[in-house]
């Protein structure tokens, strides 16, 4: 039965509990069905790129932590890669291995948060969220041993990392690597076969692959559409060409596919960490000749990495001084929002929240 109803406009956010931060979605509903949606953001804009122009290259590492604050390690990684590319620094191998280990652990942590909140948006009363948070805590414990902080690590430096991992880190990492696959299995038992989850997510929020490519979407969203585009495979930075891992793909490009891709990526990341741990070699973690105040020559460089949420790029312009002349961040969360309207229109209120959760954005990164 169709009734002519009045289209109503509702502001979802900026204080809505499911917008993952101060995000506002101006949605027009016809009954329960979305007819229009427009994302509005900038509530968390801190001018990080401008701040970079006043900081030295190492100082800015601390600010990259604050962009995607559930995946600080990868933010650091992207930045130091850009600086190394700009200044022509060859990092020391042990530092690179440590960077890879921490980045992959960070990817697991970030995906855990993404899955947990995705299920929370489905209305699962925080149970999967608590489970994923529990495992994330273990990763944070590892990071605390590694660099003394739990959220904002500032672990990496141009040329490597600031300090070698302590002895107690490695057995803890082993335990984690041994137990984590079971936990992932457990999530799958709890979620992947759950009929309610299936009926809520399958076929919802579909976007065709070419639209995704055209809209510069990246990360699990792109891979959930069957596009095998992962910078770790296609443009191997650091030592990603020396580790073996598979690229999880799904072809449905719906919310469930995004979820399942994240789950599989966690397994692959565990594999990568294991490989790194096997191949890591002793030595300095940072070349002695790299000074604290890096002075790259004039020029520009663009480095991109595969962050948990997609392609994270740093475009840095140097004028030869100790601070970047211009720094631009290509934030995956920000650009993935381009297609939000396409994903939402025609679906219902409940689907809106779920689709939004499946994109997995982080407001610190969107607004920067």
């Amino acid at each position, binding site marked *: 039965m169709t009734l002519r109803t009045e289209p109503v406009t509702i502001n979802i956010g900026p204080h809505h509990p499911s917008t993952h931060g101060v995000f506002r979605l101006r949605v027009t509903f016809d009954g329960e069905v979305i007819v229009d949606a427009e994302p509005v953001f900038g509530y968390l804009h801190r001018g990080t790129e401008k701040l970079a122009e006043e900081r030295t290259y190492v100082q800015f590492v601390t*600010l990259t932590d604050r962009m995607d604050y559930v995946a600080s390690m990868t933010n650091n990684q992207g930045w130091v890669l850009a600086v190394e590319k700009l200044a022509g620094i060859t990092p020391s191998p042990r530092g690179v291995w440590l960077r890879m280990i921490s980045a992959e652990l960070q990817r697991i942590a970030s995906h855990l948060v993404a899955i947990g909140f995705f299920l929370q948006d489905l209305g699962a009363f925080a149970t999967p969220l608590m489970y994923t948070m529990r495992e994330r805590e273990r990763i944070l414990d590892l990071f*605390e041993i590694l660099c*003394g902080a739990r959220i904002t690590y500032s672990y990496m430096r141009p040329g490597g990392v600031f300090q070698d991992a302590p002895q107690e880190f490695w057995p803890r990492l082993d335990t984690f690597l041994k137990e984590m696959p079971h936990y992932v299995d457990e999530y799958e038992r709890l979620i992947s076969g759950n009929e309610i989850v299936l009926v809520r997510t399958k076929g919802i929020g579909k976007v065709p692959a070419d639209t995704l490519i055209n809209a510069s979407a990246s990360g699990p969203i792109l891979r959930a559409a069957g596009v095998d585009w992962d910078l770790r495979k296609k443009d191997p930075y650091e030592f990603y060409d020396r580790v073996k891992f598979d690229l999880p793909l799904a072809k449905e490009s719906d919310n469930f596919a995004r979820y399942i891709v994240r789950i599989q990526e966690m397994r692959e990341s565990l594999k990568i960490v294991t490989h790194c741990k096997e191949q890591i070699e002793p030595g300095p973690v940072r070349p002695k000749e790299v000074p604290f105040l890096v002075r790259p020559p004039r020029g520009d460089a663009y480095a991109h990495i595969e962050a948990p949420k997609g392609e994270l790029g740093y475009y840095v312009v140097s004028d030869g001084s100790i601070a970047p002349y211009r720094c631009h961040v290509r934030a995956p969360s920000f650009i993935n929002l381009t297609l939000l309207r396409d994903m939402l229109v025609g679906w219902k209120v409940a689907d809106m929240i779920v689709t939004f959760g499946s994109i997995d954005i982080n407001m610190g990164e969107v607004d920067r």
Partner: protein
Amino acid sequence: MYGFGLLKGFSVTALNMARTPFTVQYPDRRVGLFGLAQASGMNPLQFAMKRPGDAVRAILGMAKIKVELPQAPRFRGQDFIWYVERCTGCASCAKLCPLGIIRIVTDPAGRETQEGEVYDVEVFDIDLARCMACGICVEVCPYDALHMGSGFERSKYAFKNLLITVDELKQMPKRPSTWFRPQLEAKGYDPHTGNEADWRLVGRHEMPNLTQLKKSWVDDRTK
């Protein structure tokens, strides 16, 4: 079959009900009789005989014991450990702080400093309200005078109370975090269990050797 996935989910939650919770109670922990007896180093029966009142409270779930949160030795806390004996007042930390929250004033009167003396640091303000515990100040300290602390209970009602002054820094218990201090780590020092570290104990994380000094001060300059 339809509905089977739901049943699997129920099994997972039931399994987790049997596990120990992962949350930590802080600052004190509620314990039962067994926990309290264990904390006092007795067996429960003994304990109940000796301290019946406490035993009843424990059975009622009212007993608590203090809890120390597990922390890594590298934990970067909110406070700073400063060794005045080592500080030369060079203010590298103030210069390299990304937020510029450290303020150092040495000898405002312009007193003559004799050879062998160090600068008298009169003001050493760290504005913890804006500190993000990145540790760059510690990293750049050339004489290992400044260390991260490992405290995290400095909540105050006003921002102005969060300012650490030089007197406070001097009086702070000297339990430095081993963050960026490999020499402490090599000794197996742990701020949470170990004793206070004297300024002589903490050493230098990077002893300057002559060739390096010559390289940076002579060769590179004359290039």
